[in-house]
């Protein structure tokens, strides 16, 4: 029983790590550009498949870095050509545009790599379980959590200690004033969008190693990403982090007792949080602190 609980808690942690990565990217883009990026799952898929295509040339480790960077590059171009045109307009424009982009990305991958799932091979060092007692803790699972932790740590450090990061945080509250202080806010938004897409690409690479690749694999992570943002409090990145971990854990632990409710539980959790704190856990005073 304890082992089962531990197994599912670890599982939840891993799921939570993916939610966090997705939600942080969504949150970055939402906070600075006011766009709810429905194409985020599409970029995740792109990242996964790019890694698959790159692995024969640069190996797993090379692909782990290069695929998200390439995905971010695509995101950068897409922002410049399309997404920036909806800034400041009715949110509906952004929803429609990114919804369309999601289909394009998904069908694009399907037509290049096929609708069939693809297996992804991971390095042998990562494939082994840690011990026979804890057979479910494979090296790859630890590696995923570690990589997500490193990415989150890096993101928060960049936002906290670099001028670009400080300007992004300033811009989430008052972009006009940032612009009036001489900062090219168009470039800032492009860069920030690309950073968010980098995280989506990274999720895709990591998820591919665990579950294999499928053109629809991004869809299942998108809604929990939004739920994580809402649970944590819109506008607060630490809140998003907390929200992602919480709903991941809740979903993992619920799988022990009510397996059928493991997906519904995150929405129940969201409802409960919103009843107690309408702005989410860190929403009110936590604005990007």
């Amino acid at each position: 029983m304890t082992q089962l609980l531990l197994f599912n808690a670890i599982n939840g942690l891993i799921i939570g790590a993916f939610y966090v990565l997705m939600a942080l990217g969504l949150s970055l883009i939402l906070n600075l550009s006011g766009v709810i990026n429905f194409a985020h799952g599409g970029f995740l898929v792109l990242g996964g498949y790019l890694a698959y295509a790159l692995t024969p040339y640069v190996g797993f480790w090379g692909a782990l870095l290069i695929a998200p960077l390439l995905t971010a590059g695509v995101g950068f171009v897409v922002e410049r050509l399309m997404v920036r045109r909806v800034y400041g307009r009715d949110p509906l424009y952004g929803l429609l545009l990114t919804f369309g982009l999601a289909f394009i990305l998904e069908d694009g991958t399907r037509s290049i790599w096929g609708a069939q799932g693809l297996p992804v091979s991971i390095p042998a060092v990562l494939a082994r379980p840690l011990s026979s007692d804890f057979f479910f803790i494979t090296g790859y699972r630890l590696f995923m959590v570690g990589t997500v932790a490193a990415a989150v740590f890096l993101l928060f450090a960049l936002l906290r200690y670099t001028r670009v990061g400080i300007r992004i945080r300033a811009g989430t509250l008052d972009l006009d004033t940032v612009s009036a202080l001489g900062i090219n806010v168009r470039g800032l938004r492009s860069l920030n969008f690309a950073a968010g897409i980098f995280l989506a690409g990274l999720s895709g690479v990591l998820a591919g190693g665990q579950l294999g690749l499928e053109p629809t694999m991004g869809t299942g992570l998108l809604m929990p990403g939004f739920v994580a943002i809402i649970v944590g409090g819109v506008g607060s990145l630490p809140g998003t982090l907390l929200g992602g971990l919480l709903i991941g854990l809740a979903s993992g632990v619920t799988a022990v007792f009510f397996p059928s409710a493991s997906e519904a539980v995150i929405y129940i959790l969201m409802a409960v949080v919103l009843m107690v704190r309408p702005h989410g856990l860190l929403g009110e005073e936590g604005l990007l602190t």
Partner: protein
Amino acid sequence: MSAAIEADNLHSFYGKSHILHGVGLRVAEGGITALLGRNGAGKTTTLRALIGLTPPRQGRVMVFGVDTTHWPSFRIAALGVGYVPEGRHVFPNLTVEENLKVPLERPGPWTLPRIYQLFPALADRRRNRGRQLSGGEQEMLAIARALLLNPRVLLLDEPSQGLAPLVVREVFRIVVEMRREGISVLLVEQNVRMSLEIADYAYVLDDGSVVHAGSARELAADPARIAALAGATAEQWTDP
């Protein structure tokens, strides 16, 4: 004297409401130009037109001889235009020091250590968040932030608003200090007496039009004129 900023025939709108009706003004280089007028006269709208936040629908803005009328605000600011918005607009979620790291780093004499020297109160509170500061400290931070851009001209929108008399005096002292540093200043104020004391030239705006332009000293010497220019609610902005 040449002009730091020259605006001609500005017409600005918020949606359908026509706010500025052909405003023209000139900010002389090296001087303090006051832009006065009662509530709702269009002072803030004029400043926003100059910095590009509310671009005019008609008219022309020249900054240091460059036509900037349809430029985004960050390009105008990058020419050396510092902007201290009405209500300060300090970033509340950022620490004082982070607030000071937002502006573009144009080369020039203003550096973080020098700013802390001029504003010791900010140095003491460098790790506090913007929202934790008093009104006076927020105003100092907004001015300091604009200075770190190393501006050649500074646009100040009601820097004395809501501050205690002692702090107001400190703000005006700093504005005079800016002129000594060679920075041209456009000062929007409702505190007419103190503004005219330090300004070289003054404009009075009413209902979106310039109703008076002339030497600040002459206007200061003519209280009846000030009252007449301001219309019915003169006492509101001629006081104290």
